[in-house]
């Protein structure tokens, strides 16, 4: 077998080791995502909500705060498809207008909470030691209160108002994110490629942001969508309890709160905001599930 005793003929390798065709990551993602019907429907629903939030006041059939005392507590009809409330305001228009406030507060609260949670979690997971203990024990303290109770406490201290609701919701988002981020960081930190990065001489910040952080993004995206659902619920609950938006401002939670007095006579006032909140939370959760499966390389 003399001819097989090859010295390394380097040029040869390229010809014989055929590589699979490069795949576009975005295309693959879209293809995988569109396979998940519930997630796609949820995604479309959320897009519609966002459109409503932007265009709401322009496409609403009535002015959201326009009282009409000739049409109080009307059930759904051709003129008012989802009926009117106790001041004769059109429920559909108010819900449309409220989308902006409700979504904006939930999203901004989650974004702030997530950002802080990621930062704390990364630091705790990467450096370990007393920093880790300090951050995690603070999180434990926050964890020991039920979410909504914590939010109420914060709003009670800061006073009612939309900004304070956002702060409250953001605060209770932080610990759960910090904890998830910490465990994700630790698991990526242990991986071989991080040790490789250290061995070629990467500085800590580079290891943290280039090698560890992208590895945790997957779980973060998923958690983010799930937390948005929770945040909408929490913001609505706070508004319902009277801590949030002003009574005159259209907000889903506030509408629910004010409508409960008329539960017997005009259930539609509560019904429609209730359904809308339920569907929105569900959509975000299902989208989260779908994203998790799509981003999992083991799922086809």
């Amino acid at each position, binding site marked *: *077998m003399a001819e*097989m005793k*090859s010295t*390394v003929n380097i040029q040869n*390798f390229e010809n*014989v*080791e*055929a590589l699979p065709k490069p795949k576009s990551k975005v295309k693959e993602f879209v293809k995988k995502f569109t396979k998940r019907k519930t997630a796609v429907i949820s995604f479309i629903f959320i897009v519609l909500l966002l459109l409503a939030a932007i265009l709401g006041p322009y496409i609403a059939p009535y002015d959201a705060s326009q009282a009409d005392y000739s049409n109080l507590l009307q059930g759904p009809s051709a003129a008012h498809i989802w009926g009117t409330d106790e001041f004769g305001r059109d429920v559909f228009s108010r819900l449309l207008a409220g989308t902006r406030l409700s979504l904006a507060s939930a999203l901004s609260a989650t974004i702030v909470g997530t950002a802080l949670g990621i930062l704390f979690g990364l630091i705790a997971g990467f450096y370990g030691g007393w920093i880790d203990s300090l951050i995690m024990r603070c999180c434990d303290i926050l964890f020991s209160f039920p979410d909504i109770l914590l939010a109420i406490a914060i709003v009670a201290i800061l006073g009612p108002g939309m900004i304070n609701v956002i702060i409250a919701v953001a605060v209770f988002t932080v610990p759960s994110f910090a904890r998830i981020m910490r465990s994700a960081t630790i698991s990526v930190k242990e991986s071989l490629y991080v040790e490789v990065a250290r061995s070629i001489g990467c500085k800590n910040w580079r290891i943290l942001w280039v090698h560890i952080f992208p590895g945790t993004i997957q779980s973060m995206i998923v958690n983010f969508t799930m937390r948005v659902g929770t945040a909408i619920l929490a913001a609505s609950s706070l508004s319902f309890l009277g801590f949030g938006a002003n009574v005159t401002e259209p907000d889903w939670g506030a509408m629910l709160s004010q409508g409960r007095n008329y539960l017997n006579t005009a259930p539609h006032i509560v019904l429609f905001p209730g359904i809308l909140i339920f569907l929105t939370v569900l959509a975000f959760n299902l989208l989260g599930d779908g994203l998790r499966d799509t981003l999992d390389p083991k799922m086809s």
Partner: protein
Amino acid sequence: MAEKLLDVKNLRTEFKRDKSWVTAVNDVSFHINKGEILGLVGESGCGKSVTSLSVMRLLPIGTSRVSEGEVFFNGEDILKVDKKKMRKIRGHKISMIFQEPMSSLNPCMRISKQITEAILLHNDLSKDEAYKRAFNVLKSVGIPDPDMTLNSYPHQLSGGMCQRVMIAMAMSCEPDLLIADEPTTALDVTIQAQILALMEKIKEERNTGILLITHDLGVVAEMCSRVIVMYAGRIVEEAPVRELFEAPMHPYTQGLIESVPKLGSDMTSLPSIPGSVPDLSVMPKGCKFAPRCKYAMDICREKEPELVAVPGQEHRCSRCVLHKLEEKEVSKL
């Protein structure tokens, strides 16, 4: 002629991938006699483990299927028997040991419980009798203090000990056939030597047939009497071990044997097979090894060769004899 213990005929196993079925194992036929160690060699992804799991009917239902073939065990086609009977055969008549001894044992259960469970499942014995039997089996696989081992949890034992326990468990019902899927790959050489010696001893004492699946040609050379070489889901060569190593017939077998560094050979550079194993779903047309084969001719890329008996050596077969033939004979084909 020795009695055939296991006789696999034209086995074909397929896996579901993106709604279509890809063939992982194709047209595999072999047999094992009593008291014989048959080696099944090949690189990762060549279908050697799938073959053994197909025989044991342990492949996941729904995502895989055995679409063709028969597996006769003691004269009975075990692909056709019902599930209940198959459970009786599995563990009782045919046992299996796996590559990762640590993860094959339940970490939350004492060794005694795990071994006696297997014994009680297949035998009508009292708990004490089962324990006694477990004690004896452990002793027979060379565990110095069976009582202590029986009362430990898997994490308290070393890898070699765990593999001994696995073998003891497999042997506890005195099976006729032992399927060992890479039994020593996760172990160190000195421990590997112990385990191999143990398997040899079991074969000698109980006349058990052993199917030894491995990628290590050294292990094959030392343990087996006959060898099957698999590539890309097909058997490419079957031969008695000495003849295989002395005069490998298939170009893949040749390349494989040459690319193993040999102790004491004083080599500084290794012959290697260029390229890599083809993906299951994009198999080349014709001979599956042709793209990496240095003897490949036009006909190899067109038509897949049959597994034929080697001329003059009826007890061995190869999927490729072309390069051994004269040019003239090739042109006749």
